[in-house]
């Protein structure tokens, strides 16, 4: 079975859902291949960004570095039984920006 590629639609939905200032981060998420596994509002291979924000958004300051670490190094056990892939091509600064953006959704 071929994967369904809804990135374009989902990216559009994401862009509409957030303030214009966050557009750069949606684009960054696209560039760093986040949308391969995560979508804005629907569960994909990983949890939706909306679900992550709903769970952790209240503790944004504390959780941003935790999620940034997870973006860079991967991990698992928090949303199911599929580990997240590490992304060694994402810098610490980009990982932090992405984590803050997701938690602000």
């Amino acid at each position: 079975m071929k994967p369904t590629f809804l990135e374009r639609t989902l990216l559009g939905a994401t862009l509409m859902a957030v303030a214009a200032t966050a557009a750069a981060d949606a684009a960054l998420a696209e560039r760093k291949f986040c949308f391969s596994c995560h979508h804005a509002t629907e569960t994909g291979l990983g949890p939706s960004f909306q679900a992550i924000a709903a769970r952790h958004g209240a503790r944004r300051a504390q959780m941003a570095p935790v999620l940034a670490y997870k973006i860079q190094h991967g991990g698992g056990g928090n949303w199911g039984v599929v580990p997240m892939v590490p992304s060694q091509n994402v810098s610490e600064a980009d990982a932090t920006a992405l984590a803050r953006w997701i938690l602000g959704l």
Partner: protein
Amino acid sequence: MIERHIGGSFVARGLYLLLSLQFGFAHGAHADFTVTGSVVDGNGNPIAQAQVVYQPPPGSAGASAITVFADAQGEFAFPQAFSGTPGASLPLVSRALGYEYRTQARSGSNQSRPQVTLLMDRVVNQAAVAPASAWLRQRIPERQQQSQFVMDCIDCHQVPAPEVRDYAAAIADMHAPDPAVARTQSWQMIVQYMNRLSAWEFSRGSRKADTPPQPDAVYSVNNEDAVAARLADRFGDRLEAIEGYAWGAPLAVTPQTAIYEYAVPEPNAVREAVLLGGRALWVADVATNRMYEIDIASGRQKIHEAPVDVPIGPHSLHRAADGGLWVTPLFNNVLSRINPASGEWRTWMVRDERGRGAGIHDLSFGHDHELLTDASGRIWFSDIGNNGVGYLDPKTGRTELFAAPPVPGRENEPAMLYGLIMNKARNQIWYSQLGIGAIGGFDIDRQQFFEPIALPDPNSGPRRITIDDADVMYVALYGGGQLLEFDLNTRRIIGAHDLPDTASAPYTATWDPVRKVVWIGTANGDVIYRFDPKTKGFQVLPLPRTRAFLRMIDIDRATGVLVTSYANIVELVQGPRMAVIIDPGDNVYPQRFAPNGETRQ
């Protein structure tokens, strides 16, 4: 230092010459020292044929790393002097399958001729040196499954590369109610993720920046569930240890063998490399419009930018008898010829009279691994885009394309017409079809295809091909882990020879016109094999690096050094991106390679 070099302006060339002279002067001002020594185990026993790798400090002239091999007494010597003053500890390590490097000790007080003893301990876990293929052939020993797996995954990365093993460990660490279900779900996720990355990589040149990649781009896995199930079944533990692997054949090394590795500044997606004039390494960067030119003595690099607006993705390199270097594009139909002396480019949009563009993979190689044209000077190419062959007449710009005949029973899979060679009489070209496990030929005078030959396993993966001086063709069977020997005169298979490691994913075969052997570069085995058609025997040349994802091998006509590259092409794949020169150390060619660019008789 890098300078951008467009069209070979006099200013740029003058600047380069000036800087080279300055660098040469500074280089000469340093004291030089030579390094010799021995490799021993904890009992003082020699470790014959151990690799000894010297990694000069950053900013040093020349190669990024130089490797030699210990002799039967464990002794080694580097062929060239290093510049500077040796520190208390030299940047040296030794490597051998089943051993781990521990420490070094200096003996002798001569500063300019340090002698070093390298200590290694015997270890059971070979993970530090063993190639990915060591795991693959143990975990998936069934040949048909092995070939399918190689064809599914190893176009983009080694399997299991360290990242794959890390992911297996992460899955094994999950606290899941049903670990088997968790494994399957996790590997399904990985395969889908890989397809997404592959689609992105291989559609670079054919889509606009704001358009998402097409999921059916080449090299995607189209049997995701089966691949994920096999991964869950066979890679179901932490994949931390590998034992009992052997290279599988005698090593093709001598105490004079030397391997020179040149890192290319990142980001890049280095593809093939050739050595021109004994001194300049030309390297294709498949992610851009660029060629790199590396001066092997100084390590200085120049960038040559193709004069086109679209990313051509320089891919296959073909030396021509007139000194030109032909460059095929990964992404579109822009064929280029670069004049290495002047840096000037010529480009052709290769389209037939109906406006159909060709998807060029290879130009036709002759037995000396140079571009060979037909009697009219036409350049023949494999057309992977249209599953055919075609020619460009560079004098008139005229192109004709010829569609290859279908292979019975294999009509429905993408054929991927890939490698190409021309016979001695220059009236036939022969090709491989990577996607369907077939080979075939085309009669140039009659403009007719011969009946294609289907190999037994559709996943055998015939890839780059070569031809000897008696019209015997050799085909690297990527999936099958074999070397196919095929006689063009009788149009019959002489043999399909199992490589010492069938999971090594042989990417390329190159005929060596002086040694009369075939060199086979692997993508998953971190080795080059040497095949002798007389004895049908193999030898192994182990490379000093894991993740040595090899592409084409060229052979320098003067010195007989092998020139190749570690081409980890997909941006997110970890691993070295280097051009590599290998002196087999057998003194068969009339001239001897020298890393300062001054070949000797």
